[in-house]
């Protein structure tokens, strides 16, 4: 009993105390941190974040099931809004078909860097920079990449 209480306390404390982004869930970031249309608010003058070509550090170690969830959930990756994906219903049609992405034999490194920020390859891309704009955390991108690589 006491042990459970202490564990619960530890969780609460760390949840309050951490400054680092939460690792396994997209932390919602205030829209005020991104450019807006206003002539008077500070966000009106924020420039777009510069493209980043992010290197994958260490093994991919992504979770396929978690990645699928992230890719299909509107409030998270919402990749289905633009891509066909394995097992996904009602997909969007603007982006390339990713249902058999794993058969393309692209490296984890390349895929990770593209999902993190497509703009280093396609400067005018419509695909949101998932990592640079903190839409997904690094671990979430690893999960999504694992899901893509497993789609065959």
């Amino acid at each position: 009993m006491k042990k459970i209480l202490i564990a619960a306390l530890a969780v609460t404390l760390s949840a309050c105390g951490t400054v680092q982004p939460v690792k396994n869930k997209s932390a919602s970031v205030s829209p005020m941190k991104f450019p807006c249309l206003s002539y008077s608010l500070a966000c009106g003058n924020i420039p777009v974040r510069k493209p980043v070509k992010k290197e994958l550090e260490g093994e991919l170690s992504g979770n396929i099931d978690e990645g699928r969830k992230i890719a299909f959930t509107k409030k998270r990756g919402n990749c289905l809004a633009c891509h066909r994906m394995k097992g996904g219903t009602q997909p969007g049609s603007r982006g390339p078909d990713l249902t058999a992405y794993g058969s393309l034999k692209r490296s984890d490194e390349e895929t990770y860097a593209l999902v993190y920020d497509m703009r280093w390859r396609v400067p005018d891309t419509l695909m949101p920079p998932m990592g640079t704009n903190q839409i997904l955390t690094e671990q979430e991108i690893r999960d999504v990449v694992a899901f893509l690589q497993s789609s065959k």
Partner: protein
Amino acid sequence: MKARLFIAVTALHAIVLPAVAETNFNTHPRFEINPELGVAGDFSGTYKHWRDPSAVEQFASVQTDSSNEWMMNGKNMDIVEDDFHPGHLAVDEGEKLVNLWEHREPGFKACLGSGSTDLEGIAARYPLYDEKLGRVMTLAARVEHCSKKVLWKNFKQGSPMNANITLYLKSLSNGQPIQIAVDSGPMKEAYLRGETLFYKRVGQLNFACASCHTPGSIMGNRLRGEVPSTPFGDVSHYPTYRSPVGEVEVLHKRFMRCLKQMRAKPLKPGDPAYVDLEVFYTSMSNGYPITAPSIR
């Protein structure tokens, strides 16, 4: 020979590289829009489907394929034979409000009509530059302004009262082609600012309005359930009765809805940035008749 080829190749590189370096990550690539053409300048190639009611009827078969429905630009909703949708109730409500307040405070109508109590046709000329006030006014801004000046009330933009009165005024121009001039002075400046905003990348998802409403963008593609369509001809049916939520939606609220989808900070109805966007949008409806009340 080899050396020459080498030089040619490096020269090519020299051409390509600056072009990449010049990419402006803050904006979506621009399109040439000729403001003189108005609605006929539509860049989506869909204008022929919705240019007038007979075209809408002729191309109504397009709707049977849901992936083509965006080509009707929603105008198929304007020919449904439902004369009693709740948008009409909102018009009646707006008319009642105007007459009630005119009765209590004579001068309300004259203020709405910029001196004239004949309110027919005025909506087709908005937004306009008001010399006396020294600013670009939308119709909703006029309603707010007159409520303050004549009634000592505040029919704030975005409020149901303001929306109903604006819709009533718009209905008094039903069928009249939109006609605003953006070729000089403050209206031209507003147009140019609005155009810039249309291409500005904003929000966490890094979209511009143009990312969904220009050729080559998401326009015409399924975004899960919805397909974004051309921005031409849009303002002619605003404010509109939105049946899914059962209320009148003004243009600035629609801007807010798109901005929320973009995960960008939505601004309040009447914001100066929205006024500029409305001028830009309205010029893209120049020559297209007003449909009010409408249902979407």
